[in-house]
């Protein structure tokens, strides 16, 4: 079988399995939410509302139906692309996600860029001073940034750069008093498109602290990955072979050692993006970043079932898509990969 057909078959299999994976996740979330103590009706009406009012609301929200019926209704709506309405204020879940997701993606992508640039720079520096003090510092950096608790670092960064030095805003996504540019919800892109440079500056200022904190905390993974893989590449036979063919050192590193060392880093980047989409919770909470993770946390506290289910399903779908895309990219770049 040709490589392109192999790749096509693999892609098809992965994409065909995606709905099964999403169904499993959706079912799990549905069940876990119902098992968890707490009643969404209490969250809406307050625990002291009379039973009659609670029963009426429960009936209006369909929570008085059997669990099986609720589950079937949920699945039926889901396959029709209907994520339902928030119990708290009857806002469509799709709109909640549409508003919160751009904030999370903006933060995740920027954090990933910070993580990749910083992590790779430190890793590159460490390998250049291999076995020396700088290499040791690089190793410490790699382990340390990975091991530090995100909420603690975030609070320290907030106290230092926002409260004490006053260089950056404490939290939020946009300066108070400024009108947000209309558009996609990606404030930086919307500001650029509308030519609103003041809005762009405001959005960037709010993005710097959370993105750098998150990025630096993740950069250690990139540092370690590059350091180990580049070190291995530089010792490999094909690098020697390249040198023996008379290639310059720049060509050897850029064309032979680095591309091979970066392949595992690409896989790590993919996994990191996937986990960042829903996993930046502590950063979003600390910096009051109005993203999807913060919204998920609030909805869990309020037992707002449709919002939690909708967000988890969308995050899961994104994770599946990103991981498939990364696998394909790696397969395209690395001819050794077989499926």
């Amino acid at each position, binding site marked *: 079988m040709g490589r392109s057909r192999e790749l096509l078959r693999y892609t098809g299999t992965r994409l065909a399995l995606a709905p099964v994976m999403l169904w499993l996740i959706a079912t799990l979330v549905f069940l876990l939410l119902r098992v968890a103590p707490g009643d969404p009706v209490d969250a809406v*009406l307050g625990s002291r509302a009379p039973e009659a009012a609670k029963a009426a609301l429960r009936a209006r929200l369909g929570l008085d139906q059997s669990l099986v019926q609720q589950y079937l209704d949920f699945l039926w709506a889901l396959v029709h692309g209907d994520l339902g309405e928030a119990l708290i204020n009857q806002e469509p879940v799709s709109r909640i996600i549409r508003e919160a997701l751009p904030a999370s993606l903006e933060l995740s992508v920027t954090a990933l860029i910070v993580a990749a640039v910083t992590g790779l720079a430190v890793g*590159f*520096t460490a390998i*250049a001073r291999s076995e020396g003090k700088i290499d040791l510092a690089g190793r410490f950096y790699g382990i340390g940034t990975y091991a530090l608790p995100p909420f603690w670092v975030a609070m320290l960064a907030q*106290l230092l750069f926002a409260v004490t030095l006053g260089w950056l805003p404490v*939290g939020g996504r946009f300066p*108070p008093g400024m009108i947000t540019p209309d558009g996609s919800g990606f404030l930086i892109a919307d500001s650029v498109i509308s030519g609103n440079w003041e809005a762009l500056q405001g959005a960037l200022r709010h993005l710097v602290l959370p993105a750098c904190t998150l990025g630096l905390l993740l950069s250690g993974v990139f540092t370690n990955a590059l350091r180990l893989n580049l070190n291995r590449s530089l010792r490999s036979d094909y*690098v020697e072979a390249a040198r023996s063919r008379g290639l310059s050192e720049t060509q050897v590193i850029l064309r032979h050692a680095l591309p091979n060392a970066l392949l595992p880093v690409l896989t790590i980047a993919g996994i990191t993006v996937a986990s960042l989409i829903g996993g930046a919770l502590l950063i979003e*909470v600390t910096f009051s970043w109005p993203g999807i993770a913060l919204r998920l946390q609030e909805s869990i506290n309020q037992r707002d079932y449709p919002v939690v289910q909708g967000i988890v399903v969308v995050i899961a779908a994104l994770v599946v898509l990103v991981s498939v895309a990364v696998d394909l990219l790696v397969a395209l770049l690395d001819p050794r990969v077989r499926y």
Partner: protein
Amino acid sequence: MASSDSSGVINSSRMSGLAYLRRHLKHLLPLTAALALCVSQGACQPGRRSDRITVASAGRITSLDPAQASTFGALQLLSALGDTLYKRTAQGELKPALAAALPEISDDGRTVTIPLRKDVLFHDGTRFDAEAMAFSLRRFLEIGTLNYVVGDRITAVETPDTYQLRLRLSRPSSSLENLLTATNLTPVSPKAYEDHQDRFLNDRFIGTGPYRLTSFRAVQQRLEPFKRYWGPLPSNAGLDLIYLSNSTALFGAMRSGEVDVLLSDSIDEDQRLALNRMASEGRLREGQGPALVIGYITLLSNTPPLQNPVLRQALALSLDRDLINERVSRGLRPPLLSLVPPGLPGGNIEPWPRHDAARARNLFIQAGYCNGRVLHLPFTYRSNVPADRLMALTWQAQIKRDLADCLSLKLDGVESTTVYRQLGEGAFQAVMLDWRGAYPDPEAYLAPLLSCRESEGSVCKRGEAAISGSFWTAPGLEQTLLQSDRSRGDDRLRDLESVERMAAAGAAYIPVWLVTPRAWSSTALATPEFDGNGQLLLARLQGVR
């Protein structure tokens, strides 16, 4: 030899690769430094200031509909965008707002006539009149999520005249006037809500207040003064209300000067104390409102061991509120010996006993404890409320100091949502909670804790007392409670006192502390002021000349 050569070649080749990296590192480092400098320069504080005022709180607002809003932040915002028929001043005086005068009450107390102002416009330019008020009241009674607060009191809303509203009541109710100050009863424009008569309008609000809403997002709202407002225009050029999700961020934003005003609803104790200190040192201004939030302990009275009233009374005597106030809040949460806040009618008495370890010991002995038999009592607190946790720890230590041979508290932290869900199931022997009445009246504090529709002896089977997790009632309590809402003046005060004394004797609830709303502003602004409902008067925020 071959091996050695080979190894030597590899090492030398690798060294040359590393040497190459080293060479280029010289260029990479300055480039990185320059990039970092650019970012930091771009990120430094721009001139944010304008004559608008930024107010921060922890209240993410999911609905602006008065029929739906229930959170502190939403009600605070609605109080600036709309008006109620009556307002309570900080001194507790009832004053007409959209009403032209105090209500006229018929002799049988079942008909309330309210004359309305004739000079009020909604933000959409339509006129406020009796029909508009009736529309809003009926809408709240029909779809309001908190309409149980009104209960079955109002049976009909009538409009005998363009500017006269008439309410027919099922029974006389002395708390009705204060109920009409509730923000949930803020009128909305019938024209703007034409398509939302039977459903909520969450992201817009068309009311009659001193501000109109020009931009709404759950985390940020922009308010502009309403130029055609019937009353005094706001003292500022406009407001930006922002939401920050945690106490540290709120505190940091106030300290760094990023926000002008901070509301205290979700500030942790140590940060509240730090802000209080900054205010005493003149670095901030602090305003306080009437204390309308009570902290209290609910005891499960329908099962052993706390079904024994002697044990409950012993627990009430064992609580050293002064120590807790000092340790938990450094004096910012005054001790409370009543279920009604002191600023409200009936709140100036202290029916619950003060801390008395000797008397508590005698009662524990009377109940068969001490001298080798220790009561191990699970005490639940809301794990997401730092002050509750501190209170629980302090009480536990204080009991260990005073009554170690009689009582031992076993602490159990449970998340709020779970606590409220399981409260009515009798899941907690003793639990620390707080309560804020929906409107500033003793009825809004006593009825939700003590009212009982079906009882058997001193056990409440159905009603608010069961929902509250105490399951406690007493013979004659429900009648006296109902009577206290029918009577007026001194008679009412006497009835309220009777209710509270019965509740104190039953000791199914132990009041702990009062929470005072506070707001801090920068020194460039005047001291923040509150109204009698505990809401910050946003329209009065202004710069100091």
